[in-house]
């Protein structure tokens, strides 16, 4: 309603996002001055080939990935929260990460010993194997959820998703129990989450899928608004509830699935970023919240990645821990301020 507040908040998000993007490229084990970065990005070769190589081969794909992955997870989380009318719903509650984990676990721990090349031996084949396995796993569990979504109401679906997650996680635990240490290391590295695993070449696949999903989310804005009032009101407004639910869950699944496939299971961005946006923009209307969450998610992803590569550290911190350490306080603060989550979402 308050148009100037909305415009101001969007400008802040865009400025902060741009700053975080540049900082993500500049900061790291070797700090590169922003001016040099811009020169490398726009192709003037006198910047020095080593710095150019670092920027183009490593920092740029990593930073772009963290922005797009964060945006995807936030948009997917927002859509899930609206459809399930539950502030803690995100794609992972429905078993995306456990499905992906199972895929990766089968690929690395079961098929791996049978002769499939491992990441440590040939990096590209290995990481693509993980991506494919995770995407198939995430897709399978989401397919199951989407089929179930036509048969039960949203609350039952949420519980079914949790049950599937628990079931799949125990299978993963069994696989882990019977696996060799070197295979486990690869599996755990994936499960920590990492924006740095996506190569410049893989971005060509990753980015189009993400953009497709984000366009889908923007096109679903009107239906998401109708879902705010619950499925009965949505139906009374002429919304085909089952088809819309399928479209929204499908879109959220695509976004979450592709990110999980390429970057591993990354929690909390999908919950914390939409929450922050509801606060910042003081609205629940999706024509504001969807673009806002996309920007906030990108900012969240970029910030997490910078912190995970905190200056002075050898290697990177587990990304999952970083997103949790940022996300958890946000969620706690939101709940404490609202006293009851029902005031945010209805019962």
């Amino acid at each position, binding site marked *: 309603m308050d148009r100037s507040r909305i415009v101001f908040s969007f400008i802040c998000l865009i400025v902060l996002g741009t700053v975080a993007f540049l900082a993500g490229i500049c900061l790291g084990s070797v700090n590169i001055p922003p001016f040099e970065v811009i020169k490398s990005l726009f192709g003037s070769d006198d910047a020095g080939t080593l710095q150019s190589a670092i920027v183009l081969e490593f920092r740029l794909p990593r930073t772009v990935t963290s922005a797009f992955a964060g945006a995807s997870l936030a948009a997917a989380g927002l859509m899930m929260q609206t459809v399930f009318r539950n502030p803690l719903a995100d794609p992972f509650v429905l078993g995306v990460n456990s499905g992906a984990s199972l895929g990766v676990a089968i690929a690395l721990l079961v098929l791996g010993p049978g002769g499939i090349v491992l990441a440590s031996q040939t990096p590209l084949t290995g990481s693509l194997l993980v991506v494919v396995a995770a995407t198939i796993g995430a897709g399978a569990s989401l397919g199951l959820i989407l089929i179930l979504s036509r048969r039960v109401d949203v609350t039952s679906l949420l519980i079914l998703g949790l049950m599937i997650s628990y079931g799949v996680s125990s299978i993963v635990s069994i696989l882990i129990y019977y696996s060799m240490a070197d295979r486990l290391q690869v599996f755990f590295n994936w499960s920590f989450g990492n924006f740095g695993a996506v190569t410049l070449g893989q971005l060509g696949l990753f980015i189009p899928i993400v953009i497709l999903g984000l366009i889908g989310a923007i096109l679903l804005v009107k239906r998401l*608004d109708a879902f*705010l009032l619950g499925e*009965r009101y949505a*139906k009374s407004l002429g919304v085909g509830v089952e088809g819309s639910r399928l479209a929204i869950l499908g879109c959220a699944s695509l976004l979450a699935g592709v990110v999980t496939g390429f970057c591993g299971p990354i929690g909390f961005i999908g919950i914390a970023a939409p929450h922050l946006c509801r606060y910042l923009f003081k609205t629940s209307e999706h024509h504001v919240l969807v673009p806002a969450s996309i920007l906030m998610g990108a900012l969240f992803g970029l910030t997490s990645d910078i912190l995970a590569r905190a200056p002075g550290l050898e290697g990177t911190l587990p990304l999952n821990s970083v997103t949790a350490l940022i996300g958890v306080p946000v969620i706690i603060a939101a709940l404490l301020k609202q006293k009851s989550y029902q005031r945010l979402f209805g019962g």
Partner: protein
Amino acid sequence: MSHHDTVLDSEILVIGYKESGQKVAENLSVSLKPGEFVSLLGPNGVGKSTLIRTLAGIDEPLGGRVFLKGEPLSNLTPRERARRISVVLTDSLPGAMLSVYGLIALGRHPYTGLMGGLAKDDKERIDWAIQAMGIQDLAIRRFGEISDGERQKALIARALAQEADVLLLDEPTAFVDLPRRVEIVNVLRELAYSQGLAVMASSHDLELSLSFSDKLWLMDFEGTLTTGVPEDLVLQGSVARLFQGESFGWDAESGGFRVHKTPARFARVSGGGEACYWARQALERVGFGLRDDDEVALEVTVSSDANGVPLYQAIIGDRSKTFTNLGDLLAWIGRMDGAVSGHRPKYD
């Protein structure tokens, strides 16, 4: 079946739960006319909400059909249906971040384009709905921070923004204080008259429904639906039948509820005016039967003094006393009872 002056009607409708196949009520034939305000009454659990959702096309009927101006509801696209029928449900809504204006704007959903942007006529209709419900002050507030009565008005405004021919409401006056209830029911009736809207609202408020509705739909546990003008249904005993088997009954003569008990003694009240009416009420409440012959334990004559203050002259046996209010009269009767039986006065 003739459809020509009805906007919404049903034919041997069976309502219930699709998933379990459980029927709630069957053989329901109802019709709503434009400009008509109808109240749906019945105890909890008879299926009032299910009937409303089925008529609105939200729940599918288990059998029979609903017609909108003669056309089966199932023939309409969801969007067409949403432009013709609007609802106010009891479903809980998200509070904190949804503005009242945003809520009402959602009523334009069946008219807006792909992205839901509001055109000029959408905004005009929203402003009209806000005006019609008199909630201009609420528009910028959050839905979560307004009172129950204001929420109902906002929800009705949302339904009005939908610009439909039929407005179906599930207990729009629940949780609302009495003056607000009267206000809401009155606004709904005025909208029916001025806009030619067909309005049907379920309610537990019998008195309000009797005095404001053009028609009543009475639904009982046998699943039968009796419809008619309120006064006819009262005279035919249909209203009283709704409360059969309860420990209290509804008395058509006084238009109010009575707890069933056989009076042990009787009183005769003579006089006129409202003071006389309320004296009878008071005596009935404390257990006197009323009759006009001489076989009474108590006689009360109601008159008034020069200033119009009521005077109640009471006679029990050989004792007589005059009171200026009913509280003193009842206390005196209590003391007389105590003097006879040795018990503590009862009516203080």
